């Protein structure tokens, strides 16, 4: 018909890609985040009373490397199970708000892979962290764009 419809390449363009309102997840580089230091955590586990602030210090939130995340999760789980039930409440009280949110994230991550006794321990931690952080901490876990 008219000259401008000779080529039909425009039909193959995915218009949704160029929509300016399209949502893209921000991905800032998290390459340098290594997760908590293993040796340090091991030494802290051996001494009593336990301090788990070290293991929550360097969360590998932005890394896309799955190994680092798995290793960090394993470490946190080790620390959490090493605690005595009576000490859990005190430990949770000593954390500030951001750390409580981080703890909640790790608790839910730990639930995904239930082993021997881990779920029972995690449920205790969940109860105490909930009383410290409230329902808001769970909401922050659900709405977080970057998981631990």
């Amino acid at each position, binding site marked *: 018909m008219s000259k401008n419809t000779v080529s039909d390449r425009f039909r193959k363009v995915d218009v949704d890609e160029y929509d300016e309102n399209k*949502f893209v997840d921000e991905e800032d580089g998290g390459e340098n985040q290594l997760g908590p230091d293993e040796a340090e955590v091991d030494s802290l586990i051996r001494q009593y009373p336990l301090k788990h602030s070290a293991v929550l210090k360097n969360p590998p939130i932005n890394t896309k490397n799955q190994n680092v995340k798995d290793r960090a999760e394993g470490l946190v789980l080790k620390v959490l199970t090493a605690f005595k039930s009576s000490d859990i409440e005190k430990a949770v009280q000593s954390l500030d708000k951001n750390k409580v949110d981080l703890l909640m994230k790790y608790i839910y991550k730990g639930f995904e892979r*239930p082993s021997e006794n881990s*779920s029972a321990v995690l449920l205790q931690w969940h109860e105490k962290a909930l009383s410290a952080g409230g329902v808001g901490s769970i909401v922050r876990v659900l709405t977080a764009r970057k998981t631990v």
Partner: protein
Amino acid sequence: MSMCNSSWSQMVFYEKAHEGSRRGADTSAFLQSPQKMTATLRPYLNAVRATLQAALCLENFSSQVVERHNKPEVEVRSSKELLLQPVVISRNDKEKVLIEGSINSVRVSIAVKQADEIEKILCHKFMRFMMMRAENFFILRRKPVEGYDISFLITNFHTEQMYKHKLRNSSKIFEDLSLESFCSRLGRRCGSHGK
């Protein structure tokens, strides 16, 4: 359907008579587990209840893809910005609850403990019975999510019409549904499994 049911429950009764003697020997071993099981039940239910309370904040949201349509985003999964992180709460490796949220809907999937073949069959039949009548339940999903036994889909329209705490409790009924309590209603001796 009713014919099927009666023959099925008859089968269970025969099983009971047959196995009664066999199970007697095992009772003592299983009696130790009741305390351990009940110890995790309370915190498990509380954790699920709290998470559901957090996830059940829904608002109306029309579809961004098709005009004048309103779809539960957790089922459609068209846009990442509308979905929340899926979260699992597990009591052990057999029992868990998966909660997937979104802006206007929440999908709750429950995996119920099934200790042996008979319980698997009973669970399957019971869930199928419920799911075939999903229309009367409103929030029940007709097919469970992969890896789970039963699923609920709760949308903002449900939360607008029903009490939120009642919605929470209705899914709790299913978690608490140990097949032992169900079986005992059928007259089978399930006390050996403990609770």
